[in-house]
């Protein structure tokens, strides 16, 4: 346990000392800030038009602003996660520091968990930047907070699952670019896998749809907490971290 935390902290810190953190913070602040601004502006214009025409129900902030924004963050994370995960093992392998980790009295699983957790905590920092924008909504209005909390929980879970995939890919290569590229491809595919269900209802299409990230994230964005979605995320995390541990073990006889 102590070792996991130790490695996690070292990896988390290195995002900041290598300036990756500040580069990604800027990107998230800019891109998400722009999304937020546009969504809020559209909402303001529409609701003004609606009230001028005397249309009965006031528009719902949660449905019109927060839900699309959460979906946006989920899509942006498909780009962010590979950039966070690519270095986890590839960098250590390339610089030779993996030899330090593997010859220290630490279990392979502890190394994998520590690194994954370090990346995940950093991703949570990025989400924090995104969440700042939503703070404005609470400052000026009274949106329903429960779907927002659930939405961010969904983002963290999705981040954990995708980061597990990227950690695994990073453990396969010493080249960060390859790790990032493969990670991005898989993240994107997992997101769009659900599209087949638009034209096909056969069993394989249902399986594809179940495997798709977007199927499960939509529930969270709507503010619905379903145990099936939790099972999906946790089994993804478990599976990929298990594979990573195997891959790290195999470094011993592959290298």
């Amino acid at each position: 346990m102590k070792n996991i935390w130790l490695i996690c902290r070292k990896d988390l810190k290195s995002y900041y000392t290598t300036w990756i953190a500040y580069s990604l913070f800027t990107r998230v602040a800019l891109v998400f800030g722009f999304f937020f601004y546009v969504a809020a502006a559209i909402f303001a214009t529409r609701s003004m038009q609606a009230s001028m025409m005397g249309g009965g129900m006031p528009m719902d902030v949660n449905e019109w602003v927060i839900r699309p924004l959460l979906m946006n963050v989920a899509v942006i994370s498909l780009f962010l996660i590979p950039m966070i995960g690519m270095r986890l093992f590839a960098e250590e392998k390339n610089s030779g520091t993996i030899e330090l980790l593997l010859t220290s009295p630490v279990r392979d699983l502890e190394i994998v968990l520590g690194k994954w957790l370090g990346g995940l905590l950093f991703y949570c920092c990025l989400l924090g930047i995104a969440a700042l924008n939503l703070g404005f909504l609470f400052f000026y209005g009274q949106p329903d907070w429960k779907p927002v909390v659930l939405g961010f929980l969904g983002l963290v879970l999705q981040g954990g699952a995708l980061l597990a995939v990227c950690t695994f890919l990073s453990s396969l290569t010493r080249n960060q670019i390859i790790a990032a590229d493969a990670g991005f491809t898989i993240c994107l595919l997992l997101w769009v896998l659900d599209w087949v269900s638009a034209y096909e209802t056969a069993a394989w299409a249902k399986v594809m749809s179940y495997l798709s990230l977007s199927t499960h994230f939509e529930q969270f964005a709507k503010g619905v907490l379903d145990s099936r979605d939790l099972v999906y995320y946790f089994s993804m995390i478990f599976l990929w971290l298990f594979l990573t541990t195997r891959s790290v073990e195999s470094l011993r006889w592959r290298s």
Partner: protein
Amino acid sequence: MIKVEGLTKRYGRVTAVDNISFSVEKGQIVGFLGPNGAGKTTTMRVLTCFLPPTAGSVSVAGFDVLEQPLEVKKRVGYLPESPPLYPEMRVSAYLTFVARLKGVPKREVARRVNEACEKCAVANVKDRIIGQLSKGYRQRVGLAQAVIHNPDVLILDEPTTGLDPKQIIETRQLIRNLAGEHTVIMSTHILPAVEQTCQQVIVIDNGKVVANDSVQNLTQRERGVEAVSVEVASREGALDHAGVQRRLEQVPGVSRVQLMESGDGLCRLEVEGLAGRLIRDDVARAVLDAGWRLHELRPVSLSLEQMFLELTAATEEAATEAAAK
């Protein structure tokens, strides 16, 4: 402290280490010697539990590397060929991280980091970022990393490569200071380093141990005969080199005279005596009687360098013979 029996390591079809055995006593400094690709690094990686052996048994500090790797790792400090440093970290933060990783209790960490910095002469760069340090400092931070948890066994893979001569001497001194409380295995292909630092030498070539002995024994083993190097100069004018050689060959007890260097009015020869004969005084007298100047006369012992070349050449010959068959 270290016991290796029948260790074999194969990478696919390539056999990097072929059935080697040796043992090292506590507190010794052992030089691990061999040409590039001989299997030194592989053997060290097995000792540090980085690689599992294909066959054979290896135990360090009484623990088997396959059965109880965590116990072995706690007792081993390892400096790989390229020091495993995080360039973005500061020296003190890095050493603190390694100390914690190696299981140093929290309240002792600060003291151990200071000690290691003092021992390895990196105290003055403690607050610098590793990536900005010179090669010599990085190597020493690597060494500090290896000794930080006060391990029983230190395994150093080419600890002096890339250092300047002054740093090499300092590092050797440092390693000598570490011996006693630690058992040290260092690999190198720089022979003077071994002659000056190590007590025991294991020569490995093509994945096999070709010699395992003390430095003294190894350098003397090849000869039971006295050999001297003689530098002769003429009193005036040119010197007849062939004449000098003929004259020395006539000295009683001399078996062989070889002209090593010849210059204007000057030459150096290596004179070898018959087994059990002291030839030094007779050689000197012969030179003086002939009217030449005796510039230098010193005994030659087979240097580790020659010994190394002879040993590794022998295995190469054996290999080519085996291939021919």
